[in-house]
């Protein structure tokens, strides 16, 4: 088979292609500058997200069975063990819950938690790269969702609503590298800052350098009224603690809500704690 008008070898750009490439680079840099320095492209972002959100909704019905199958492949064979382990953990957690019920201060904190949430399903992740730490949910402003609201999977913190369209919304995952979450150690009550580490969980630094973090400590979001997120949601469990030469304590935390297995989630219906940045 021959392709008469196709180049045998295209080792160099033609003059016209160089001009086109230069123009496109300039346009890309212009977009980048406008978007980084201001909100001039907010409308364009919203329009494309809205259009893609509608398409995700249509595509999701066809794709989701395949996606769940593919997501389940790495866990094939391990589900039995997982169920047994979860049953055991569930029994322990029930016992712990009974203890907490008697604790007046915990009870007071729990009473501040909002009880209404809108159930939603994850339709898609970011359309560009695998490391786009956002997910698109199938609920939007028609369901009462607003920017800044906290999202949970029923167990722990998932993230917060970044953008809302009529029928879908984009959620920035708490696991996003670089994102910060105010946290509280349930054992000591110490406050800390948890930084997202992608699939590795969180890296936590206590605000008080002398604070004692221990392996196994449970962290929750908080404190109420000062955090972007609803207070009291499980953030994760401390898996290791390191103290640097300058005395700073840093802990690694396994997330309560795994960002890799998100499917059904709930958007907590409160007034948003903070406005989204873009």
């Amino acid at each position, binding site marked *: 088979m021959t*392709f008469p*008008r*196709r*180049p*045998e*070898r*295209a080792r*160099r*750009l*033609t003059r016209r*292609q160089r001009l*086109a*490439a230069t123009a*496109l*680079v300039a*346009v*890309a*840099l*212009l*977009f*980048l*500058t406008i*978007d*980084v320095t201001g909100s001039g*492209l907010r409308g364009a*972002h919203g329009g*494309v*997200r809205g259009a*893609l959100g509608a*398409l*995700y909704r249509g*595509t*999701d019905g066809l*794709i*989701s069975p395949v*996606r769940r199958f*593919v*997501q389940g492949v790495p866990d094939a064979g391990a589900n039995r063990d997982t169920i047994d382990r979860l049953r055991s953990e569930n029994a322990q957690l029930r016992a712990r819950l009974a203890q907490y019920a008697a604790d007046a201060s915990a009870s007071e904190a729990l009473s501040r938690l909002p009880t209404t949430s809108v159930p939603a399903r994850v339709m*898609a*992740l*970011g*359309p*560009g*790269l*695998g*490391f*786009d*730490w*956002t997910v698109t949910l199938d609920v939007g402003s028609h369901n009462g969702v607003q920017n800044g609201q906290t999202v949970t999977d029923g167990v722990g913190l998932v993230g917060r609503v*970044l953008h809302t369209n009529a029928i879908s919304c*984009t959620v*920035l995952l708490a696991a*996003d*590298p*670089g*994102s910060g979450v105010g946290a509280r150690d349930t054992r000591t009550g110490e406050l800390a800052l948890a930084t997202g580490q*992608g*699939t590795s969980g969180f890296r936590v630094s206590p605000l008080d350098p002398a604070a004692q973090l221990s392996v196994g400590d449970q962290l929750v979001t908080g404190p109420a009224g000062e955090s972007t997120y609803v207070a009291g949601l499980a953030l994760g469990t401390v898996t290791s603690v390191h103290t640097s030469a300058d005395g700073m304590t840093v802990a690694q935390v396994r997330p309560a809500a795994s*960002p*890799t297995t998100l499917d059904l989630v709930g958007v907590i219906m409160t007034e948003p704690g903070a406005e989204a940045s873009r």
Partner: protein
Amino acid sequence: MTPARLGAAATAILVALLLQATLVAPAMLSAQLSLPAVLVAAVALELGPGAGMSLGFATGLVADLGSAHAAGLLALCWLGLGIGCGLLAEPHRHAAAQALLAAVAATVAGALATLGLTVVDEPGGTALGAVQSLLPSLAGNLVIAALVVPLTRRLLRADVLRGSGDG
């Protein structure tokens, strides 16, 4: 560009972005797989730098605007991906070699995009994450390229889409 090729390019961009968001990315969050990047590389390796840069820029810009990060970043990276792969275009290369090249190029472009996120101080990427994900990303992109490259070659060599390459 013929209307048939324009329509095919627009459809390819849309399908690639939808599949990336609803299937590829959720399936393996620990690696940086990108179906659109592999598609851009595959088309550029087949048609040359002109088609590669156009497709790369257009796909990247739509992905940017649909994402949380600043617009222009993926457009810039995938524009470079299209040009780079286009300069390596070789009509008689074996499909397997073409798939390998497309996967390597898409992985490098993904790592550069992640580094770019850190440079412009945007959420989503760290330099360490970019380095750590190189090997798993390459493996995943190879699987995608093994499917996408032969399909792209066959489609681009079909009579209805065959037109002038860019020389």
